């Protein structure tokens, strides 16, 4: 029996639909009642819902064999897992955004507000730009408006929130989408099983 950690919320629901279409699941994951884990004995799979940012932790530590996680979280946490498949859903972009007229002239240390400290650090290091990273938990768009930072590094889906706050995308760091990840030890023992799941999921999302 392989266990899969799904992220709570819309992404988890979409993935569960993919699993249903692949013949690996049935029913509605949101109607689990008090059950925290649902099993599909025929497919040999067990599902549970966890906070999206915890999925990679469950998989890396082997509490789940497989998991679905956004590339943003995977890149930020640098979890030691296999990243087997891009599901092509939950698509968005990791971007640098700031006031429309902002120009970084390099004359002083750039102040960057973000939830994604590691991604921002790595990005600016690759550019050789000295930055002060300001870690925030949410409402990142507020930081440049209140003068807390010059720019932000954040996920941009439609760009609507940025526009409403007079901000613009200044650079794209990487595309983001949901990934299927696997625990490295489990993969050594169950590679053919896991590869079969990957293949079926690929067929469904094509």
């Amino acid at each position: 029996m392989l266990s899969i950690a799904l992220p709570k919320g819309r992404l988890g629901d979409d993935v569960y639909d993919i699993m249903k279409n692949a013949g690996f699941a049935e029913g509605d994951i949101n109607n689990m009642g008090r059950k925290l884990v649902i099993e599909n004995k025929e497919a040999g799979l067990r599902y549970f819902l966890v906070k999206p940012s915890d999925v990679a932790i469950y998989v890396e530590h082997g509490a789940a064999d497989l998991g679905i996680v956004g590339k943003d979280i995977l890149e930020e946490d640098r979890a030691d897992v296999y990243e087997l498949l891009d599901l092509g859903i939950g698509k968005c972009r990791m971007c640098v955004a700031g006031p429309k007229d902002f120009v970084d002239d390099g004359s002083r240390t750039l102040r960057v507000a973000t939830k994604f400290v590691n991604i921002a650090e790595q990005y600016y290091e690759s550019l050789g730009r000295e930055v002060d990273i300001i870690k925030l938990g949410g409402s990142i768009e507020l930081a440049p408006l209140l003068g807390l930072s010059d720019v932000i590094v954040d996920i941009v889906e439609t760009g609507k929130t940025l526009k409403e706050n007079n901000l613009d995308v200044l650079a794209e760091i990487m595309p983001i989408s949901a990934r299927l990840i696997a625990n490295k030890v489990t993969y050594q023992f169950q590679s053919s099983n896991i590869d079969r799941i990957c293949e079926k999921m690929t067929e469904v999302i094509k």
Partner: protein
Amino acid sequence: MENLLDILSPQERTVLSFRALFESKGYRRIKANRFEEYRFYLENINFLRSEQLITFSDLDGRLRALKPDVTLSIVKHYGSNGGLNKLYYIENVYRPGPTGRSFAEISQMGLECIGKVGKAEVSEVLYLSYESLKLTGKPFRLSVSHVGFIAGLMKSLKVPTQYRGALYESIASKNPLGLRMTAEAAGLSGENIDFLQKAALLSGGADKVIDTAFKYCKNSEMHRAVGQIKDAIDGLDSSNILIDFSIRGDEDYYSGLMFCGYIKGRSRVVLSGGQYDNMLKKMNKEGRAIGFALYLSELFGGERHA
């Protein structure tokens, strides 16, 4: 006093059985220094799993570090006496713990074969790593790779040097999308990208995969790599052996075979090793070397629930 062994915990018995196995093949136990000068580790930082070390100023003012690794110290002290050194150790090392929030004392046992190392010694070390895993009494896998396979593959496809690091990262995480994106950025043709993905992400049971690996060889470096894997695993029960080119090692240190051991129910690798002739060269020592470490903390830590 008849049943003296009865007071030993299962873990202590396993460690004793590892010792008996190593000594049966002529390996002798050594004690490594507890600390080395900080700059010694700094010069070899790419070999270490983490750049973070516990440092302190010694009484004479020298900056020292608690050892994060044992192999470097062993090579430094035993790497130049001209003979064949068959050594093993049981030591604690100090590295960032699994949560990454604090340092941890990690119990490690390891075996090193340094100096006049030939084909027989390489096979013997692989055999000992296989037998060590077997001694745990649990289902296990020994995954084997060779630096020459991916290195040769990159050369044959003329991957520009600046893209190789990112490709190695994608291969290590078996990430086909990352691999393709980097290969595209590196200017590889569609046909070459398909081939790179197929060859670099090849893994599976040794008996099934080895012939395919030979078919994918584009140059003598790749051919030699697969040939050496085949020779080294000859005689071991292939049902527990996997070929997996995602095992990663820094080419500045590793020169040939690389391998990792896994135990069912553990969440991380419990054994890792490889041939590290290039480390000897880097440290101006003559000869060749191969060895492995068993991570006792991982081996005897809490079990995962089934």
